[in-house]
């Protein structure tokens, strides 16, 4: 049975990990994800988990140890943020290409420089092409729920890919909020176990992992990996359906918030989506046809589904919490335009880069943005810039 509780996003994720009781965790401290390995250490000290906790000397080694453990046929997890994730980048690609279902608790933080500890999505967006499934959470509840689903997705035979469960640094990771925690037994039963057919510690048959591959094999290996990512879409939805049946909370690839008849829409991720929803409520009360799409699954990217969901919208703002330095906005903006092009043409679209380095976005900021969207809806597309920044001083 679900129990009401209140805790931070980090504590919520740590509790999901405690309930899953993975075989190996390798982690290194970095703000704001540090609390997760701290909780793990305490859980272990109190005998609440059986996990082998490897206190590595860097995030690079954390991911390396996770790969070694996962290739040995056990569940391996880590937690990191920002520069820590960047230090892992090389190994993120290796984990995915080795098809190892490692799970990472990612706590989004600005990637230096300048060095800053507050939230931004530049860390995980930098890893967007690494072959990891990426699921983003609006609040502690979603971070907890997504973590309980992560292994089922990663380890599904149709998938076998690593998963990162992202939440916003501090805003979600350090804020106390209400949450429903599931019983330990029910959570553990949902997460299930893992027993892959081939691994390093199989006494019946040796296995070699991490080959040198000549060109005649690489293209085929990557096509196989790409197809696993394509298949992940259905698996994510299936696992979510089972989660809803078991615990009553439903999830899709994205959430449509008051999109019935919406003419002005925001496409947004993570904690800022909650703030923007309050703006939508206020505007709807005033009769403005505002709606919002909160993207939950960024990898695999639900292009066709988004095009279908946004089809009736007149004006759209795609909210990137990271700068792509492409001179045309951020990565989410580029991918959403890709999704819409030729499938849902005619939507007046602008990419907004906001919230960098933890820059706060208020309800009023989003209300004003919907006001701007109303203006864009009547403009010729040629007069609308590809992107702009929001919230900076001029």
């Amino acid at each position, binding site marked *: 049975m679900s129990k009401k509780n209140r805790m931070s996003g980090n504590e919520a994720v740590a509790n999901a990990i405690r309930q899953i009781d993975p*075989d*190996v965790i*390798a982690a290194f401290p970095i703000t704001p994800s540090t609390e997760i390995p701290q909780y793990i250490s305490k859980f272990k000290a109190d005998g609440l988990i*059986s*996990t*082998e906790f*490897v*206190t*590595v*000397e*860097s995030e*690079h*080694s*954390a991911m*390396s*140890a*996770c*790969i*070694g*453990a*996962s*290739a*040995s*046929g*056990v569940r*391996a997890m880590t937690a990191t943020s920002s520069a820590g994730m960047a230090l892992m980048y*090389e*190994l993120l690609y*290796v984990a995915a290409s*080795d098809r190892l279902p490692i799970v990472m608790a990612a706590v989004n933080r600005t990637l230096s420089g300048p060095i800053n500890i507050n939230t931004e999505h530049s860390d995980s967006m930098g890893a967007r092409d690494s072959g990891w499934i990426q699921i983003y959470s609006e609040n502690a509840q979603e971070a907890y729920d997504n973590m309980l689903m992560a292994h089922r997705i990663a380890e599904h035979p149709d998938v076998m890919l690593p998963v990162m469960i992202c939440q916003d640094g501090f805003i979600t990771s350090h804020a106390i909020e209400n949450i429903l925690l599931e019983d330990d037994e029910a959570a553990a039963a949902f997460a299930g176990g893992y027993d892959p057919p081939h691994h*390093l*510690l*199989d*006494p019946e048959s*040796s*296995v*070699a*992992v*991490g*080959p*040198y*591959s*000549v060109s005649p*094999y690489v293209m085929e290996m990557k096509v196989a990996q790409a197809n696993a990512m394509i298949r992940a879409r259905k698996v994510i939805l299936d696992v979510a359906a089972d989660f809803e049946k078991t615990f009553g909370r439903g999830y899709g690839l994205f959430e449509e918030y008051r999109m019935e008849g919406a003419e002005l829409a925001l496409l947004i991720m993570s904690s800022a989506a909650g703030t923007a929803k309050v703006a939508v409520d206020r505007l709807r009360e005033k009769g403005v046809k505002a709606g919002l799409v909160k993207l939950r699954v960024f990898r695999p990217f639900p292009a066709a589904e988004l095009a279908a969901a946004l089809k009736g919208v007149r004006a759209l703002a795609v909210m990137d919490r990271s700068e792509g330095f492409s001179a045309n906005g951020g990565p989410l903006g580029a991918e959403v335009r890709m999704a819409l092009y030729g499938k849902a043409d005619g939507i007046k679209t602008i990419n907004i880069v906001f919230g960098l380095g933890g820059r706060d976005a208020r309800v009023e900021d989003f209300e004003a943005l919907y006001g701007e969207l109303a203006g864009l809806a009547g403009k010729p597309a040629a007069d609308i810039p590809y992107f702009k920044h929001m919230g900076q001083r001029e």
Partner: protein
Amino acid sequence: MAYNAYSLKEIANRPERLSPGHRMCAGCGSTVAVRAVMRALRPEDKAVVTVATSCLEVSTMTYPYTSWEDSYIHTAFENAAATASGVVAAYNAKKKKGKLGENYKFITFGGDGGTYDIGFQSLSGAMERGTDMVYVCYDNEAYMNTGIQRSSSTPLYADTTTSAIGSVSDGKPQYKKDLTAIMAAHRIPYVAQTTFIGNFKDLHHKAETAIYTEGPAFLNVMAPCPRGWRYAEADLMDICKAAVETCVWPLFEVVDGEWTLNYEPKNKLPVTEYLKLQGRFKHLFAPGNEALVGRIQDDIDRRWEELKVRAGAV
């Protein structure tokens, strides 16, 4: 530490754990090192081998082939020890939960680039954490896989493709890093330095001790590279012998902090007897370069005397 009884004839009956058909160069020293280390595993024990990016890695698991009889994993260049840490953690988890009956040993191989340089942090971390594994550095004193670039293991004045000799350069201007001593400073249970001598008794003893010592162990094995050192492939054993007889590469071990010299030449040869065998030092024999050889000799002598003091041999 006293050597265990050793019989090459008996040991040679053990099943070969590195299969042929790998793509290493003819005459390569590194697979000689690998075979010798793996031979020290008792046939009834299983192993998981980790290899850092290197010649050994690209040549022994070239898809869809593996040369390893045991399970094997490669992930990257700088992280072989960390990768092995994860395997060991998984093994401990399985053992604790009663999911695995068999005994496994964990052996990691890295070249000097992957060990002295880019993989040093990961190695230091795994050793400090007390990981029950053996890390074997096969030291051929340069980045051979990428084409003979200098590493921190490359000796003074060696000619490499990034310490080129020329009208104003005598080769690598820096001394070789003393990694074995650095690993001993980690206060791990077992550290040893060895190479290929005679019937391989020294290497076998050290590999066996490393594998069957509980906790972390480090072996530094000089493994000459005929291409990078520029000598005829067939001369492998002559090079190793000269390295030991000139005290360029002393054989020693450090057991629980106690240093032991395993071999002391009765007649220590001048370093030129080692240098003259290799093209990478050829420029040192040009007229006018006697002082350079003198500096090398001084360095070797100083290190040898230090080692003897540490090992209580004076």
